């Protein structure tokens, strides 16, 4: 029996802002009493759907954000971190999904960043480069420490990250989807390194969505779902169906009420659209009054597809037909005027002007239609904004309240109000319920259903399977930049089935 070196008990975290501080008055728990432990020299795999809390848990372990509750013990001693550096000094290294290297510095400079070897003012370059090549050689890599990181492949950059983490004498290394951007030979190489590290007694926490990988290198698998700890399974007992069940096994409540009846009149049709030069073409259509679900992992090309349709991204061939007309190289303003709108997944960056009041945000996309003579009529503006606030039940002090003081759910409703005011015929919703509480969620589902009843065609992108299953009339599944499956019958909407198309 291997020794347990790290124990996390009942870790709780409320929904937080960009600085890791809990949002005032929020009761949404991203992590709810999660337990997690790591044994010596094991590869512990952490899985769960998007938003299950994996990254948040790892950010807490990496000292990036503080927990709101629970304890962490390293070798039986209680620990807490004030920042990532402290976590690193306790021997916990974090390799992020997006690599954190300085591209304009060379390999050795990156490895010793912030703790350059030398006396006082002068850097002992010889020593630094010698030690860098030594460390690289130990892992069996022949990379010149003088090479600029910019000139390395992604896999090589990942290796530099690993060397950097190891040079701190780390005993636990967190790898967040390390294979996401690697080729298959590079992945093999990475697995060799992981096994090598294991032999040296180093433990790995490995986050991934790819099941094949888990079986190859994992020792134990822990599943999180909706911020809760579901269970831990040793790899010998790995059972595909059971794991998927653990990942998604929740009941669909009365949240989703579908009263709308889809028509068979196509309003949006995409043919042979390629979102990147190397991806397979996409065919997709949306009927009037239909809610079409678009499922898939983050990064599978869902947002790219939506933005290609909305004219805010260049794509690689294919045609988009809207309302009978081919649309090509258009500015969003033209599409909005015609009734095709896109609600971005990032409401803070692409949905709202946070520093402006609710009223101004609601009318922002309808200015030319509401005020064709360019003269903003204050009374009219407030009347239409107030209608939006009332219709969507936006909870606020006044129409003049700035959007950055609203809760996530109310912010999302303001964005929705903005788009509804444009009187759309097709509404593309990108993660419409991300990061908002249950009440606001069910309200947004009601609005979606109402719009579909009014004949609006809706394309709903979501990572949440229950939402896709509960709301959609038809479902597309995306994988690797293209559509991997279309499910047309409601009986086929099944979490296991969709997930299997998602993961491939």
């Amino acid at each position: 029996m291997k020794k347990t070196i790290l124990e996390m008990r009942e870790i709780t975290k409320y929904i937080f802002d960009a600085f890791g501080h809990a949002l005032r008055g929020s009761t949404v728990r991203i992590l709810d009493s999660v337990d997690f432990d790591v044994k010596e020299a094991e590869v512990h795999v952490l899985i769960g759907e998007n938003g299950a809390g994996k990254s948040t848990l790892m950010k807490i372990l990496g000292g990036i954000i503080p927990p709101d509750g629970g304890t962490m013990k390293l070798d039986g001693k209680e620990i807490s971190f004030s920042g990532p550096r402290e976590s690193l000094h306790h021997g916990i290294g974090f390799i992020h999904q997006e690599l954190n290297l300085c591209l304009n510095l060379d390999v050795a400079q990156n490895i010793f960043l912030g703790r350059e070897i030398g006396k006082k003012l002068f850097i002992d370059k010889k020593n630094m480069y010698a030690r860098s090549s030594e460390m690289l050689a130990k892992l069996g890599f022949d990379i010149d420490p003088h090479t600029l990181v910019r000139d390395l492949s992604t896999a090589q950059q990942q290796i530099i990250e690993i060397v950097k983490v190891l040079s701190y004498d780390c005993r636990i290394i967190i790898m967040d989807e390390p294979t996401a951007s690697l080729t298959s030979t590079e992945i093999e190489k990475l697995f060799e390194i992981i096994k090598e590290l294991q032999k040296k007694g180093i433990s790995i926490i490995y986050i991934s969505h790819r099941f094949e990988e888990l079986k190859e290198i994992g020792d134990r698998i822990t599943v999180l779902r909706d911020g809760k700890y579901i269970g831990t399974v040793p790899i010998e007992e790995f059972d595909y169906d059971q794991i998927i069940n653990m990942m998604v096994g929740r009941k669909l409540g009365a949240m989703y009420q579908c009263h709308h009846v889809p028509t068979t009149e196509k309003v949006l049709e995409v043919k042979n659209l390629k979102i990147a030069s190397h991806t397979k073409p996409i065919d997709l259509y949306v009927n009037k009054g239909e809610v079409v679900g678009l499922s898939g992992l983050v990064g599978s090309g869902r947002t790219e597809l939506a933005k290609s349709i909305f004219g805010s991204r260049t794509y690689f061939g294919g045609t988009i037909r809207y309302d009978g007309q081919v649309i090509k190289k258009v500015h969003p303003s033209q599409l909005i005027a015609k009734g095709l709108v896109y609600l971005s997944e990032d409401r803070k960056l692409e949905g709202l002007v946070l520093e402006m009041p609710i009223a101004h945000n609601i009318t922002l996309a309808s200015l030319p239609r509401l005020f064709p003579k360019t003269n903003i009529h204050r009374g009219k503006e407030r009347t239409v904004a107030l209608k939006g606030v009332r219709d969507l039940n936006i909870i606020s002090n006044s129409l003049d309240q700035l959007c950055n003081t609203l809760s996530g759910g109310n912010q999302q409703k303001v964005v929705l109000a903005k788009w509804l005011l444009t009187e759309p015929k097709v509404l593309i919703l990108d993660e419409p319920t991300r990061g908002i509480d249950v009440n606001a969620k069910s309200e947004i589902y009601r609005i979606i259903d109402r719009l579909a009843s009014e004949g609006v065609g809706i394309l709903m992108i979501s990572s949440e399977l229950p939402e896709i299953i509960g709301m959609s009339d038809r479902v597309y599944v995306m994988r690797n930049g293209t559509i991997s499956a279309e499910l047309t019958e409601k009986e086929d909407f099944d979490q296991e089935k969709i997930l299997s198309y998602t993961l491939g």
Partner: protein
Amino acid sequence: MHSADNSQIKDIPSVISNALRKFVKANGSVVIFLILWIVASVFVRNFFSIENMLLIIKQAAIPTIACLGITVVLMTGGIDLSLGYTLGLCSISVGLFVKSFGLPIWLSIVLTLLIGIAVGLFNGVLVQYVRVPAFITTLGSGFIIFGLAQIISSGSDINRLPPAFRAIGITEFGGLNTTVVIAIVTCLVMYYVLHRSTFGRALAAFGFNNRTARMSGIKTERINVMAYVICSFLVAIAAILLTIRVNCAQPTMGGGVYTFEVITGAIIGGASLFGGVGTVIGSVFGILIVKIIENCINLLNVSYYTYQAFQGIVILLAIIFENVKNRKL
């Protein structure tokens, strides 16, 4: 739900203090102006007189027009460092047109305004489409414009302009002159453009968050270029009026010092260097504050260099005040 509860628990003193807070937050420069005015009236001899008030207003008129221009650019999150040099180019241009070439007055003015628009287009297109930061672009274009002004003037000034041309700016009535009237009209027009039109709304949205603005169907490219065009157009108006006032068209008129003074006014007036924020009232009072300080320095017989250093202190204080205000209120 908590936000709904907050709205109901409001006692009367907090309503008043909230209203006061809101006013100070929105009109910080008006408050600074009043404080400065009272202090100057008490401590600076000869400051408190009607003649002196009118003098300050006259002195503030032309920079106010240019300041409204830079306010539009600041609202996009950009900056126009070529402003002072554009002023010089337009000054020498109008002098050449009206005196050396002997063109009709109206044509000289129209051509000068067109030069202003051309400069704005040049700056705007560079900033928008070449995607060089405005700071660098307009620093570079400023030198080009300065050089151009020197070349077309052969380095010399044009004195004694036609009286009919000068009448546009210096016709006096009731202690004020037509320049002040033009400035007031400009303020009213710009008030409409910035605060009452869809353009102003789109400009603010663009300045705060250009991605949201674009995704909401705002033609951000056009707005960004237009901001520089409006700025240089207003600077051309200011140049014509300043040329009339000093009765001399000079290629070296304006320059970096003028740019700095005008930006100071806008910043004191609450315009944000990060975009989105800027008001006509703020900028007007910003310039009035700059001019009161200048006036006091004159009355106190302090050297011009001290004035420049003082101006630097004022701009720093204004920025610090802005920060403190945003944090505390």
